């Protein structure tokens, strides 16, 4: 029995007790698999699972509060679910988690860069390559060259919190140390302060304030009442200046400090390619360093900024 069949079977059994199950369906081409609500048994026929299932379905849970929901998760998505459980946004009793072992998802932007493809009619995966048929032309590329960056350094391919685990767990692609080594972070770290300041100024200048980053984030659950477009409190004006745009990213990053599971949806969602995940990765490293804490692992833990220790081992008082 293939994994997908097994998954469908599990959902089929659970569906009568649920309002809906969050999954993915085939999109306008074979490289896209948009999120999908499975309400009826017959909806299951559209369900797909594979490396094109990039969206983190946990982002939807906030909308669905009060409903009994099933959710299909990859390893990284499960961390977001754990975080939402911690923060009591979702109730474990009204959630059924179908965990899928994950070998990585595609970065469509990388595919576009690697292959001159417009409409991917068919996609096949075998032996570490991806074969894409567009029009009457079939081309292939090594999977590792078109997987999302986060997957290349993934340390949590298997969900830690689930009700149904489909198939066998997969081995993490890399060790924890390798997972920590991140060329994008190293590049930013390699800059001096002036360069970094300029880096952000340039990138933020491009921002549209479309809030795709915020709304794709599974943990930015205040989206409708976000500070960024509130008049009371009035943190930000509607002006599209670098100051306001950058300030929003600072708000975003600080609010996620100690909570971000680094699913990368914010950066993936950005239409103009602003590397906003860098700030969150950095803060995650800071949080790890200061509090030895990683978000989305333990559903009973308290995120470090909502608690304290009287004696902080890793915070040294700095004298001027």
């Amino acid at each position, binding site marked *: 029995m293939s994994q997908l069949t097994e998954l469908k079977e599990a959902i089929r059994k659970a569906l009568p007790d649920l309002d809906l199950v969050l999954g993915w369906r085939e*999109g*306008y*081409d074979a490289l*896209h*698999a*948009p*999120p*999908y*609500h499975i309400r009826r048994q017959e909806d299951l026929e559209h369900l797909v699972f594979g490396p094109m299932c990039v*969206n983190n379905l946990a*982002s*939807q849970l906030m*909308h669905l509060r009060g409903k009994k929901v099933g959710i299909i998760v990859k390893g990284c998505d499960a961390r977001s679910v754990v975080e939402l459980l911690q923060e009591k946004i979702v109730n474990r009793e009204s959630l059924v988690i179908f965990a899928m072992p994950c070998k990585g998802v595609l970065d469509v*932007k990388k595919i576009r*860069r690697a292959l001159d493809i*417009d*409409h*991917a009619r068919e996609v096949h995966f075998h032996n570490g390559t991806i074969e894409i048929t567009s029009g009457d032309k079939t081309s292939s590329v090594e999977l590792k060259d078109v997987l999302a960056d986060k997957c290349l350094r993934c340390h949590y391919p298997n969900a830690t919190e689930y009700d149904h685990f489909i198939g066998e767990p997969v081995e993490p692609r890399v060790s924890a140390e390798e997972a920590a080594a991140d060329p994008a972070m190293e590049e930013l770290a390699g800059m001096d302060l002036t360069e970094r300041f300029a880096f952000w100024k*340039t*990138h933020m200048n*491009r921002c*549209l*304030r*479309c*809030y*795709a980053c*915020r*709304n*794709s984030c599974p943990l930015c659950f205040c*989206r*409708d009442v976000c500070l960024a*477009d509130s*008049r009371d409190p009035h943190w930000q*004006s*509607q*002006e*599209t*200046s670098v100051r306001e745009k950058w300030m929003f990213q600072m708000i975003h990053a600080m609010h996620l400090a100690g909570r971000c599971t680094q699913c990368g*949806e914010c950066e*993936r*969602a950005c*239409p*103009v*390619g*602003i*590397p906003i995940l860098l700030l969150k990765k950095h803060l995650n490293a800071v949080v790890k360093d200061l509090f030895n804490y990683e978000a989305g692992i333990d559903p009973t833990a308290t995120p470090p900024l909502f608690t304290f220790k009287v004696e902080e081992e890793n915070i040294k008082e700095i004298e001027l």
Partner: protein
Amino acid sequence: MMASLFIVSKDIPQWLAAMAKTRKVFATQRESGAIIFKPYDPGREVVFERESVTSCKEAVFPQTKVLFSYFVKKNPETGETAGVAIEESLNKPAPQAVVFGTRPCGTKGFLTFDRVFDCDRIRDPYYTSLRERTAFITLACDRPGATCFCHWVGGAPDDPKGSDALLTPVEGGFLVEAVTEKGEELVNEARSLFAEADEKRREEGAAVRDKAKGMLTPKPDLTDIGPALEKRFRDLDFWEDMTAACVSCNMCTYLCPTCYCFNITDESDGQAGVRLRTWDACMSQQYSLEASGHNPRPTRAHRMRNRVNHKFWYHPKEYGGVISCCGCGRCVKHCPGSVDIRRILLTALERKDEDAE
């Protein structure tokens, strides 16, 4: 239309530089993998190979427009208010502008704007002052993308409507056709860069356009789309299903060449202030939020219904049957959830005979 001219690719920067002497020039440039419209910078490469992520809307309808600034004056002796000084932004004339490298669909977007901001009922000076001063040099598409559907809504990969000049990519350069006098003027300002296009080039150009048209997928008949959407109006389950992937961000509307909604806010310290007009997006919960706290469009399903209906039903109804979607496909291609407006239309059409429960 003036006779076809030809310009070699490497001379494009010179043309841009010539135009930039007296005008503000917006051109497509690449930043971090994304092609966006930015003011022309001779130090940066202008790229054409794909449709830009952002539309050229910013050039005529800037995301932030200061309508005016004001200052509450005081009597220096008493501290009491002694009137308000107002600086009207229209008093500072905008420079002439050129938008270079937009595609036919994007250029046509302003026709929708014109219908709204420059019509018998209303003539919005903030819009028209910029619109009048802006020229569009459009690039015909040689290869429609997977998300393109301009032909569904009355467009074509080489549609010159709204453009002042139209470029067609051919071997080694571009065929250039001025569509308007303004376009002609822009060509004439750097006339030495252009050669008359010979027959062969003209044929090649025609072939490129034909090929592009030939690549378009079959188009549905959208004649009945209004009634079809009307049938689905109360069918919230339909809209729920259609928006399962929507995250309610503003991206589709901000990238859209025809979305013209705006918000007006004052920023003031109590004495000095500015009135800003900024883009707004109907996909945002706040868009329809009323002061009472009531929201007539509380869910993303309601909001998506509005966006689609507006473009394909309300707007045509209001403006002589013209659909206010240009079919550029940006909202599909860049959507974080890959929400496909075409699928919504097709599904609605499919179910046009089915009444909502």
